[in-house]
C-alpha cells in the first residue's frame, strides 16, 4: 500500500516540489509551483485537446528492422521495451478529431517512444496524415517532440524528411492550412522538416527547439551555452516562430487560429457547434 501511495507522487525536475500525480494531470501536467511543463503522453495530449472522439489512422503501421541493427541490444528489443514503457506503437499518434468544434487532422508526437525519433513509421504516419487531410479538406495540426532522425533506421529514417516534406507541400499547395506546435524537445530532422513548414508555428513555453543538439554545439565550440539558448522564448526573440504559448492557454489559442483558416481553399464547412470561445 505504501509503494502504491508513493507511486502517486512525482518530483518536478525543475523546482523539486513533490506533486500528487492526479493533481498534476488535472493541471495539464504543469507544475503548480514553478510552471514547468512536463512532457506529455500523446494520448493525454489528445485528451486535453479534442472535443469528443479521436479516430486514429496509421496505428497498425509497425516498424521493421531494415538495417538489422544491434548495439547493446537488437533494435527490435528496444522497440519492444519502448512499446511496453510508453503504451504506444510508435513515436507519433495521428488521426481525426475536432477541437473547439473545428474538425482537424491531428498528429501528436511522443518523446517516450525512442525519444520521438523519426523512423519509417513516423514518416509514413505523418505523410498519411497530410494526404488524408488533403482528401478530407481538413486543416492539419501537428505537435512535435523529437530528438531527430532515428539512427537505428539509418538513411531510411533520413529520407522521411523528404517524404513528409512532399506530403506537406502537396497538402499546402492544394490550399490546406497547417499549424505546428513545437513541444519539448523539437530538434534535428523533425525541426528541419515538417515542424518548420507550417503556416503558423507555435511553441510551448520553455520548450527546447533547435537543429543541432545542445551537447553537439558545446562540444564543437568548446564553451558553455547560455541557459536560454534554443528555448521557445529565444526563438521567438530571434524571429523564428510565431508565438510562445503556455499550455493552459494552448487549446483556446489553437481554436482561435483554426478559425482564421475557415476560408482557406481546402477547408471544411464552418463549425456549427457553439463551442467557439468568446
Amino acid at each position, binding site marked *: 500500500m505504501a509503494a502504491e501511495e508513493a507511486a502517486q507522487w512525482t518530483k518536478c525536475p525543475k523546482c523539486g516540489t513533490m506533486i500528487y500525480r492526479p493533481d498534476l494531470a488535472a493541471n495539464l501536467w504543469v507544475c503548480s509551483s514553478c510552471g514547468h511543463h512536463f512532457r506529455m503522453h500523446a494520448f493525454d495530449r489528445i485528451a486535453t485537446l479534442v472535443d469528443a472522439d479521436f479516430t486514429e489512422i496509421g496505428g497498425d*503501421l509497425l516498424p521493421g528492422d*531494415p*538495417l538489422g*541493427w544491434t*548495439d547493446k541490444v537488437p533494435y527490435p528489443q528496444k522497440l519492444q521495451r519502448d512499446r511496453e514503457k510508453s503504451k504506444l506503437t510508435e513515436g507519433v499518434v495521428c488521426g481525426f478529431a475536432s477541437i473547439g468544434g473545428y474538425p482537424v487532422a491531428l498528429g501528436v508526437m511522443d518523446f517516450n517512444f525512442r525519444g520521438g525519433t523519426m*523512423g*519509417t*513509421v513516423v*514518416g*509514413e504516419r505523418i*505523410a498519411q496524415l497530410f494526404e488524408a487531410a488533403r482528401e478530407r479538406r481538413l486543416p492539419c495540426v501537428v505537435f512535435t517532440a523529437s*530528438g*531527430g*532522425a*532515428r*539512427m537505428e*533506421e*539509418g*538513411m*531510411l*529514417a*533520413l*529520407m*522521411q*524528411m*523528404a*517524404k513528409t*516534406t*512532399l*506530403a*506537406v*507541400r*502537396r497538402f499546402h*499547395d492544394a490550399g490546406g492550412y497547417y499549424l505546428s506546435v513545437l513541444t519539448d524537445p523539437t*530538434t534535428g*530532422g523533425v*525541426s*528541419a*522538416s*515538417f*515542424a*518548420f*513548414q507550417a503556416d503558423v508555428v507555435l511553441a510551448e513555453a520553455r520548450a527546447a*527547439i*533547435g*537543429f*543541432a*543538439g545542445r*551537447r*553537439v*554545439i558545446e*562540444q*564543437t*565550440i568548446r564553451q558553455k*551555452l547560455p541557459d536560454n*539558448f*534554443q528555448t521557445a522564448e529565444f*526563438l521567438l526573440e*530571434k*524571429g523564428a516562430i510565431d508565438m510562445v504559448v503556455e499550455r493552459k492557454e494552448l487549446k483556446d489559442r489553437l481554436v482561435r487560429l483554426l478559425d482564421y483558416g475557415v476560408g482557406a481553399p481546402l477547408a471544411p464547412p464552418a463549425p456549427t457547434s457553439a463551442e467557439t470561445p468568446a
Partner: protein
Amino acid sequence: MNVIVEREKGLLELEQRIAELKSQAAAQPVDMSAEIRALEAKYAQIQREVFGAMTPWQRVNMARHPKRPLGSDYIAALDQFDELHGDRHFRDDHAIVGGFAKLAGRRVVAIAQDKGRDTKEKVFRNFGMPGPEGYRKVIRLVKLADHLGLPVVTFVDTSGADPGIGSEERAQAEAIAQSLYELADVRVPVVATIIGEGGSGGALALALADRVLMLEHAVYSVASPEGAAAILWGDAARAEEAASRLRLTSDDLIRFGIVDDVIPEPLGGAHRDPSGIVTRVLGTVDGALDALARLPVDELRDRRYRKFRRIGAPPPR
C-alpha cells in the same frame, strides 16, 4: 589521421621504387624488365587488397580523402559558370557555391557544397558546413531556376550543417526545412550527386532530387559516424563502429532504393584520376537530365513524389 592516406603510404613507396627502376632501366643496357614486372604485379596485388573490399569506415575515409575532387572541381569543369552570391539577407555562405552554368551546352543552375582544400580554404568554406545563409542561397537559386525553367544540378559533400551558435540563432532548422520544401515541388528537373560525404539533413537539403547519383566510394548517412556515435553512445570516438552499422555505402543505398545510380571510381579512389572522374560524373548528370527533360512537368513532379513516398512505406497488401 585518414586511414586511406595511411594505407596509401606503402603503395606510394612501391610506386616510387617502380619509377626509379624504370628510369634506371632506360639509362642502362641491363634488362630489368622482369624485376619491374614483379614489382608491378606486387603493386597491383596490394592495391586490390587495400581497395578491393573496403570496410564502411575505410569508405568514410575515402570520401574524406584530402585529395578527393571537391565541389569546386566539378563547378570548374562546367563549360561555363557565373557565380551568384548571397542569401539577400545576411551574408554569402562560402560552404555553398552556386550560380548559372552550362553543362554540355545546356543552361542549368549548379549548386555545390565545398569543403576547401588547404587550411586557409577550409576556414573560408567553413569545412563545407553550410549555415542557414547557405541553405537560403540554395532556396533562392532553386526559385530562380524554376522561374527561368533551368534544370538544377547539385553536388553534395558535407559532414553536416554547421552546428554553431549563430546558425541556431538564425534558424538552421527552418532554413533546411524550407530548402526541402522548395525542392519538393519545383517544376524543373533536379539531379543531385553525392560526390564525397553526404552528412544528414545538411546534405539532404540539396538532394531531394529526381535523380540521386552517388560516387562509388562516397558515403551518405543519417548522421556523420561521429555524430551518430555521440547520439547513440555518448562517445564520438566510436565512429568506426557507427559507420559499420549505419549502411552508408553506395552498395547499401542502391539496394534500399535511396540512390538511383552509382558512378564507379578507379581502383584506389576518385583522386587517382580526378579529371577523369569529374568528366564521368558530369556526363552521367547530363544523361540523367536528357531523360528527365522528356517528362511533362506534372509527370516529373508525380514521379518525384512517388520516388520518396515509397521509401520506408509498408509493402502494398
